[in-house]
């Protein structure tokens, strides 16, 4: 395996929980909540890693922290030879790292035409183009849009068309890494398929590395090489797609996969219903943070914090009593 393109070690991101004068009277450890609490990840060049987890598990924060939109409170991030935790030249970093946001239309500047939007990365990074119109048309064509879109405004685009413009813009400077935050959010299932096919085609064409954040589990097999599962700002399991989908080692992964509707109505499946709600970030349970909701928790789960360790089913899991392949079918 080649050296990873992106390496995260113990990344911590904190958000202020109390503001202003009230912060002075609050105990220091309660002033902030940890949205990311010690995330470590390696993303190899050319691979697609999907990050899954419930709302509020820190998926979006992770992407924003990598891109520098959210400051790190701790840990190290290395990308393409640059140390992102040491105040790098973000202008240079962002040229090599593109980002796609959740809202396809809302992430396009409303008073710019598609042509301006697509050519903007070149303007930002001071790249002179000989044939601006030609370049814009090429990029549009790569994303599957015709020349008549050149002079449209974002509000004149459908969600799928706006997403294609987003893809074209993300790929304009042929970045090394694309961070895609919910690339299929708010799109019809048929359009989701088109967008995923488009991303797969481009990925194989450019040898692109992608980090996809999603809670749409149906697309995982279609697009990802590996999956990382997040819970309360921590990675609880990471491993190859097939392994995680068929033999999850962490009870949370298993519950997550089981909660996803199965297209085949005759398929027999076992439902795992989690107890209670996701705990708030400022009231993290002691020990394993999943233990109050875990169906297989034992007494010592509340006492010891599990670390990510190689699991029996391949990949790595943060659980004291990981599920074995056998227990799945028992």
């Amino acid at each position, binding site marked *: 395996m080649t050296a990873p393109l992106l390496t995260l070690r113990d990344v911590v991101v904190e958000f202020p929980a109390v503001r*202003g004068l009230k912060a002075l009277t609050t105990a220091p450890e309660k002033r902030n909540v940890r949205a990311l609490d010690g995330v470590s990840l390696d993303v190899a060049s050319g691979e697609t890693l999907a990050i899954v987890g419930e709302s509020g598990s820190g998926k979006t924060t992770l992407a*924003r922290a990598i*891109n520098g*939109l959210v400051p790190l409170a701790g840990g190290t991030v290395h990308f393409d030879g640059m140390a992102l935790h040491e105040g790098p030249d*973000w*202008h*240079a*970093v*962002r*040229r090599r790292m*593109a*980002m796609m*946001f*959740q*809202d396809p239309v*809302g*992430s*396009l*500047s*409303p*008073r*710019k035409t598609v042509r301006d939007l697509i050519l*903007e*990365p070149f303007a*930002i*990074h001071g790249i002179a183009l000989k044939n601006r119109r030609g370049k814009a048309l090429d990029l549009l064509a790569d994303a599957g849009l015709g020349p008549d879109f050149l002079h449209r405004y974002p509000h004149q685009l459908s969600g799928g068309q706006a997403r294609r413009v987003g893809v074209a*813009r993300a790929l304009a400077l042929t970045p090394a890494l694309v961070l895609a935050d919910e690339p299929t959010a708010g799109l019809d299932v048929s359009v989701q398929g088109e967008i995923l096919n488009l991303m797969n085609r481009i990925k194989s064409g450019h040898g692109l590395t992608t980090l996809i954040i999603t809670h749409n589990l149906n697309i995982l097999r279609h697009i990802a090489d590996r999956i990382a599962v997040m819970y309360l700002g921590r990675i609880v399991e990471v491993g190859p797609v097939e392994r995680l989908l068929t033999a999850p080692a962490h009870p949370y992964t298993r519950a997550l996969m089981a909660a996803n509707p199965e297209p085949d109505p005759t398929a027999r499946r076992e439902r795992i219903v989690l107890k209670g709600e996701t705990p708030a970030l400022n009231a993290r349970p002691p020990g394993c943070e999943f233990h109050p909701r875990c169906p297989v928790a034992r007494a010592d789960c509340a006492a010891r914090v599990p670390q990510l360790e190689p699991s029996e089913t391949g990949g790595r899991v943060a659980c004291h009593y990981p599920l074995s392949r056998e227990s799945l079918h028992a």
Partner: protein
Amino acid sequence: MSAFRHSLLGRLLADPMALFAMVIIAALVIMALLADVIAPHDPGAMNLADRFAPPSATYWMGTDNLGRDTFSRLLQGGRIALYVALTAVTISGLIGLVLGMLAGFGPRWLDNALLFFFDALRAYPTIILALALAALMPRGLSTVIIVVVITSFAEYGRVVRTQTLSLKNSEFILAERAMGASFGRIVFHHILPNVLGPFFILAAMNLPVVITIEAGMSFLGIGVPPGTPSWGATLKDGFDYIRNTPWILLSGGLPLILATLGFTFLGEALRDQLDPRLRKTR
């Protein structure tokens, strides 16, 4: 042709209110610009033989207590009104734009300080401030402009601040930052164009307010120096000599009414076309 129908001007022309407003404004602007050419008499020339003359072929809107032609004076007054309105709105708009963006982008303490400042200024009654400043400063148009600027820039500041604040955290601005766009690029290419819509609506709605403030100050005798043919001063003359003739008061009020209606209708039509969400706020 259809492209024109969907353009802003095309949509405004399709709206009868806006069309009416634009005709009035165009007429006022043309008359103000060509005042010297159109005016049948010298606006300052006195003709004591023809004092308090009713409207006639010679004096279209009659004459005042010194026998000066009211119509010629109103044309000059239009110049003063438009000059004061445009200058004051431009200056207060620019100050409001800069301070509003500073408040929107700056740290929390700056935002709070500017908001406090805006609210304090807006709480001050315009006419009281005008009287106080008029006592301190020489009579003249610049005093009128300063009063208007002081009392109205806070309103622009507030609108711009609110817009900036909501745009600053919008996804497309995050997307621009994620692409590596500089602060200047984000402000001038992406925030400013989206702030200008509501800003121009507010400016158009403020023009008639400024015209009436100027007329009001001149009416109270704290605006233009005596003898200047401002609309407010003409109204004051008409008020003083209402027992001699009603014509000065009637013809002095007419352009004021037309200008106020014209700019108000235009402002409302602009608002409806550019930003229908604002319809409920006033």
